[in-house]
């Protein structure tokens, strides 16, 4: 009985495998396949914060503003033009004739509905945060709206970029919001329409032929499939065997080796992401640790051979960073104290601080394991015995919240937001509101967060300059390097990398 069952099953499986021999998509049927490492589980960007979600949202959705690729500034997208009335009032006029995927025209009603949904959906806190600055929104005409802000907010356009416009009524009505309305199928205004969605597996997209003439431009490729492949090795194998055309987040070594294959292109471009060590200068983990001494923190800055790591491990345009922000973004003042690589000086500083033979330090990290080990090795050379705790982000978050972290190796990507506000907002908050500000210096908080409370560009620049100077002087961080973004693609396609490293995949075209 056993035997027959087994042979029957095997016959069935062979049968199926013959019928469903796999189909590879390519240029001939105008279908592009790209791979993400992370899983897409929800199409609605408002419910996911990861970069992958943003990329997908930029394909399906559109918002009032957009980050322009060339000089990294916010430009109107669904908005035709806008006017800053005063510090807390913004008038926006909408483009006419923009159509949702179902054919309906987008009007001021849709915009008002979307923003009201965002700020009034109390059930979802993560949600309301997207526009925490917004007092209310008024419809001032069929194609114009007015935003009334609670207080001046500098990073306003970033949020206007991030909030995707939803069709009036599609997410339910006030008090009866439906969070999952657009999770599995989405009606947006973006360059691509959703054909099908298999959560965690793939999203199949088709070009929106009615797409308006916006800053994203009209997409060149008709069909696009976004696949989730969690293992990078598997992604490489897929690319080599032609199963996918495009993958990103590829490290230098892998990318360069892959590029030896004629059919594969490797591009290593700039990225907004920077790396840094956050040090517990305030002594949250307990008083008296060497790291609370500014000389020790400066020694740390001197001890790490950032240039070598940036050049050898990260490569491409990656470079040493001296500030707590990426030099290319708005407000990132560069004329601060710079600590060059100088182990002797580091040892001298340590000796001066009373630690001639170094000390032990627990360093947490969660990303870039190679660089973390390189840092450990460099610090070891000046006598700082580092005990590396490389783990998952959730573990680090928890430990940091419990004030158990003395130093950690963090990175910040700013996902396509070219403004110091994005990184400083989260890292220099008041310690009672966030656990990443370990400086213990209220002045830093005052300057860096204060810069968000004004719309005056010069004023903002001045505040950031002061703040960044203070951070560098006191060596609250060890700013490390900017990252680069590696993209592997098939020779069949043309993909242009942008200055912010944000992959605008809707711009891909066949070669």
């Amino acid at each position: 009985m056993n035997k027959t069952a087994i042979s029957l099953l095997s016959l069935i499986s062979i049968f199926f495998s013959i019928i469903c021999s796999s189909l590879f998509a390519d240029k001939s049927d105008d279908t592009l396949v790209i791979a993400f490492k992370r899983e897409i589980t929800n199409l609605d960007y408002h419910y996911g914060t990861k970069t992958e979600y943003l990329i997908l949202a930029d394909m399906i959705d559109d918002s009032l503003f957009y980050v322009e690729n060339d000089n990294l500034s916010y430009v109107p997208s669904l908005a035709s033009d806008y006017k800053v009335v005063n510090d807390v009032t913004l008038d926006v006029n909408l483009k006419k004739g923009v159509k949702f995927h179902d054919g309906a025209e987008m009007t001021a009603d849709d915009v008002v509905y979307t923003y009201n949904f965002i700020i009034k959906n109390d059930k979802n806190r993560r949600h309301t945060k997207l526009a925490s600055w917004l007092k209310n929104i008024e419809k001032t005409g069929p194609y114009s709206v007015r935003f009334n802000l609670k207080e001046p907010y500098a990073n306003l356009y970033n949020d206007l970029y991030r909030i995707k416009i939803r069709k009036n009524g599609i997410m339910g009505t006030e008090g009866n919001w439906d969070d999952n309305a657009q999770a599995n199928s989405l009606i947006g205004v973006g360059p691509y329409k959703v054909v099908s969605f298999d959560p965690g597996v793939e999203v199949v997209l088709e070009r929106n032929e009615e797409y308006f003439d916006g800053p994203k431009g009209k997409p060149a490729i008709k069909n696009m499939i976004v696949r989730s492949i969690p293992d990078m090795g598997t992604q490489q194998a897929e690319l080599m065997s032609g199963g996918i055309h495009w993958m990103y987040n590829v490290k230098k070594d892998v990318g360069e080796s892959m590029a030896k294959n004629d059919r594969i292109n490797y591009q290593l471009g700039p990225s907004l992401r920077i790396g840094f060590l956050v040090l517990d200068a305030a002594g949250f983990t307990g008083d008296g640790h060497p790291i609370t001494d500014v000389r020790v923190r400066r020694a740390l800055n001197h001890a790490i051979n950032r240039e070598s790591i940036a050049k050898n491990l990260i490569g491409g345009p990656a470079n040493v960073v001296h500030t707590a922000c990426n030099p290319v973004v708005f407000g990132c003042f560069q004329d601060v104290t710079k600590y060059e690589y100088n182990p002797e000086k580091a040892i001298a500083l340590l000796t001066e601080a009373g630690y001639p033979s170094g000390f032990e330090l627990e360093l947490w990290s969660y990303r870039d394991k190679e660089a973390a080990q390189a840092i450990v090795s460099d610090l070891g050379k000046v006598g700082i015995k580092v005990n590396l705790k490389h783990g998952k982000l959730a573990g680090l978050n928890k430990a940091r919240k419990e004030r158990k972290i003395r130093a950690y190796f963090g990175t910040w990507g700013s996902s396509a937001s070219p403004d110091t506000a994005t990184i400083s907002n989260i890292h220099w908050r008041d310690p009672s509101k966030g656990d990443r500000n370990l400086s213990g210096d209220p002045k830093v908080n005052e300057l860096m967060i204060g810069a968000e409370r004004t719309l005056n560009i010069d004023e903002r620049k001045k505040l950031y300059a002061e703040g960044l100077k203070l951070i560098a002087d006191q060596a609250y961080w060890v700013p490390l390097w900017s990252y680069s973004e590696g993209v592997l693609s098939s020779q069949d396609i043309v993909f242009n990398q942008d200055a912010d490293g944000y992959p605008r995949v809707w711009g891909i075209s066949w070669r």
Partner: protein
Amino acid sequence: MILKTFIKRLVPRVLEDDISLLSPKTVVLRKAISHSGFKFGLLLFISIILLGILGPFFLDISPYQQDLDKRLLPPVWIEGGSWDHLLGTDGNGRDYLSRILSGTRISLTIGIGAALVGMVIGVTLGVIAGYFGGWIDQFVNYILTCQLALPGLLLAMTLVFLIGPSIPVVIIVIGCLHWTLFLVVTRSVTKRIAKLDFVSASNAIGATKLQIIIQDILPGIINQIIVIFTLEVGVAILAEASLSFLGVGIQPPTPSWGLLIAEGKEAIFFQPWLIVLPGIALFLLVVSINMLGDGLRDIMDPKSKLE
């Protein structure tokens, strides 16, 4: 050949007719000598240990010493390799031979440590359940079912996640997940021994339960335990590799083999030695331990005859 004659000297030659009169230890020793799988496993195991322990003393390169200008050098037999780094370097420019050699110690520490933890748990529960029986046995059985039903790797991940990864944590967590075999075998052997007349005899001469367990039961199960122990060492080493692969194992830069394999993973297409070399080391160690275990099982098994 020299080894062979040496070993033969160790064992007194016994006339053919006296085989049944040998003491148990001599019988085991003679079986060991005649068991080729066991000998091979032992030889391999000892050489790996020697390499792992003595190797680092002969290398003047520390496994932690990095040189970012000499990253990803291939081994000496591949074009571009140099004699400075026999097995090439890794992504941080550290000497790979040195890392693999010092990885031996770490992998073995974890393997043996975890198997010890598992043994203590499994044997204790097994002896208690097997000897006392009744509701205690039922309770142990319940714990066993719980453990078996639990997806081990997931629990290990959660646990390491919870406590934070370090060598002792990994050892304890892996050990806590690999005691079932000890328990099952110990329990059944204990049950069998507890029924034998000599246990009743010990009972009748007034021996306490503890005395019976220690003097009568434990010596009877020790053979089986040794065998399972060796097998579990192999399992634990692989479990550590899996944990490291998932990113919750040994902490870098400590060079455990599992971690080396995990780190070399992305380079598998282009710098395959990064994953193949520690893979071979892991494979050899596990094979040698398994052969050792299998050999021990044959040797310790009273049923198996002298061949």
